[in-house]
């Protein structure tokens, strides 16, 4: 029990992922700044932002439904903490085997942060926030379909393994899935879905600052906003890690370059594209991405 609590709260759950995630956030901001010919923030900037938000006043708007407004950030944070534990453990702890079907649990838990954003935004009672919420719903519906379809590719290729640690072992024995054609296609689809799950440009319509003033987060302040930021930071670790686990032979501290490569891809996509409209994003995911994902599945069944 203590072991589990330790895993959940400190290593490799909450605390470890937060530290890792803030570092990733800093890399994101720094690389962005360098692309834009700026110097960029110092290394402790994301930490300072969170600390500062934690000492600011929390304002709850009059029109808001208070409990939901207050608790929805927590839902997202606890979900992503659980995911981080589930994904980290099979990768770095050879003793831990996880449980059968943890892929499916992770898949469900990964939608919870988006649902938390929706709940919080709808609870705040601001027209712009509710617009942000409706965009978030559309986004979730758009990217979940290709995400889930391409998630089945590693399962098919490993002949029905539903346990993360088994998939890692299978890849260790038979080579990474990303090296095969179907795995490659599914991996690319997953990278785009990851961009959307992280809410980064070009798929950041739900919190578009210049369109709907921060959209879903418009009424949040202080620690509650900080929790959303933390959730984002942790997702920035967990999602690439999940992808590496599924397609790229898993992760250990020697292979941190895999993570860095994925992070750089995210940052590059984010800095070389304008924001797409929500209907364009939906067409992109339901059209091209879903087709590609289905193609990957068919190829995987053929064994390619």
């Amino acid at each position, binding site marked *: 029990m203590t072991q589990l609590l330790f895993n959940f709260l400190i290593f490799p759950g909450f605390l470890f992922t937060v530290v890792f995630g803030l570092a990733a956030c800093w890399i994101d901001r720094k690389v962005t700044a360098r692309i*834009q010919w700026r110097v960029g923030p110092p290394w402790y900037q994301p930490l300072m932002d969170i600390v500062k938000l934690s000492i600011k006043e929390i304002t709850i708007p009059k029109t808001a439904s208070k409990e939901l407004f207050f608790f929805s950030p927590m839902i997202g944070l606890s979900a992503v903490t659980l995911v981080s534990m589930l994904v980290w453990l099979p990768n770095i702890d050879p003793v831990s085997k996880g449980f059968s079907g943890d892929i499916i649990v992770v898949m469900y838990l990964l939608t919870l942060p988006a649902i938390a954003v929706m709940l919080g935004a709808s609870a705040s009672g601001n*027209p712009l926030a509710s617009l942000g919420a409706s965009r978030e719903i559309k986004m979730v519906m758009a990217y979940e379909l290709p995400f889930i379809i391409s998630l089945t590719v590693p399962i098919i290729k490993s002949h029905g393994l539903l346990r993360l640690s088994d998939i890692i072992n299978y890849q260790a024995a038979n080579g990474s899935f990303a090296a095969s054609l179907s795995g490659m296609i599914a991996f690319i689809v997953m990278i785009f879905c990851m961009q959307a799950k992280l809410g980064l440009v070009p798929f*950041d*319509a739900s919190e578009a600052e*210049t*369109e709907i003033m921060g959209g879903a987060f418009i009424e949040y302040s202080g620690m509650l906003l900080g929790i959303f930021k933390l959730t984002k930071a942790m997702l920035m670790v967990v999602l690439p890690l999940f992808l590496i686990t599924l397609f790229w032979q898993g992760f250990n501290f020697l292979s941190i370059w895999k993570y860095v490569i994925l992070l750089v891809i995210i940052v590059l996509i984010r800095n070389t594209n*304008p924001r797409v*409209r929500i209907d364009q994003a939906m067409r992109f995911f339901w059209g091209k991405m879903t087709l590609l994902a289905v193609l990957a599945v068919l190829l995987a069944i053929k064994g390619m």
Partner: protein
Amino acid sequence: MARKIIPIGPYHPLQEEPEFFRLHVDGETVVDIDIELGYNHRLVEKISESKNFDQVAFMVERICGICSTSHPFAYVNAIDDLLGVKPPERALYIRTAIAELERIHSHLLWLGLAGHFLGYNTVWMWAWRYREPVLDIFERVTGNRQNYGMMKPGGARRDMLEEDFPWIKKTLKDLIPKLDMFKGAIMDDPVIRMRTEGVGVLTKEDARDYGLVGPTARASGVNIDIRRDDPYAAYDKVEWQVCTHEGGDVFSKAVVRILELYQSINIVIQCLDKMPKGPIDSGIKDIPPGEGIGRHEAPRGEVVHYIMADGGNSPARHKIRAPSFMNVASNKKAVIGETISDATIILAAVDPCYCCTERMAVVDYKTGKKMMDGQDLIKLSQEKTEKIKNKLGR
């Protein structure tokens, strides 16, 4: 779905200035828009009547920061028209060079902000980085990054030094390859084209109906430019072209502005080459009773200043018409039927300048009384689809 009202502003990151749009939306589609101005209004025209003719040149500079030489330029044109004098040659070239430098910085600023509205911050940062050398030129020539104070009735207030010319020319020529790169990056980016083409189309008829001016009109294929049509200063002594584009959408407006950047660089360099030696001020003493109209093609379009003097020390009436006053009104036509995401870039595409627009006007655009009904809307959107189809078919 029920109609919702989405307020944009008055304090909104969309624009650096306060303005208030109420978008009536149906789902994501804008069905109506109320424009409410007045958050930036300072009654400049009234203040102008309490300043003397020399002070007014400084005051009109502070109508709008981005076009901070356009208003003084139109104002001095009005005074020159009132008096019937022609300022010394050198002053004309100095005025032209300053106005064109301002156009460069203003268009780069708009390009950057347009990128920012599209969520493309890299474009924003790059455009503003290229804008800095232009501001350096201003700082060297006039002593300030904005608000140059170079215009004076009957001449120029400050001379340009010959020893600066080679450096200015070099700085501007260095800008050209960067613009080429930038032009390529914007025009070839498929996502940018997806976001801007066929969005917020204004036809030639709309342009006439709403009295559009400047790049907004030229992007709709209306070939007007005060610099060519009603030549003043040194514009008839240098070679340049008016840039137009046929699309009428946001993309065309960007194209026109990018093309104008090259023309402006060209004009400044020609001005520096051809600038004659001589006095810069004709030394106006008194302003007799009379009236004068001054026009200038600001980066956003035609500025009109009307001055009425009664023989006293300050204007009896000073009417200012800024280009955005005409252009902003067209938002109503351009935005309806588009989505909210597109609305922001359309609202920004005319390069609105509320400081200019509101120096005088207070408008509450309550369209509630003549709200468009469903039929009109459908017709409108069908027309728009037709237009886009025609464009694609061509």
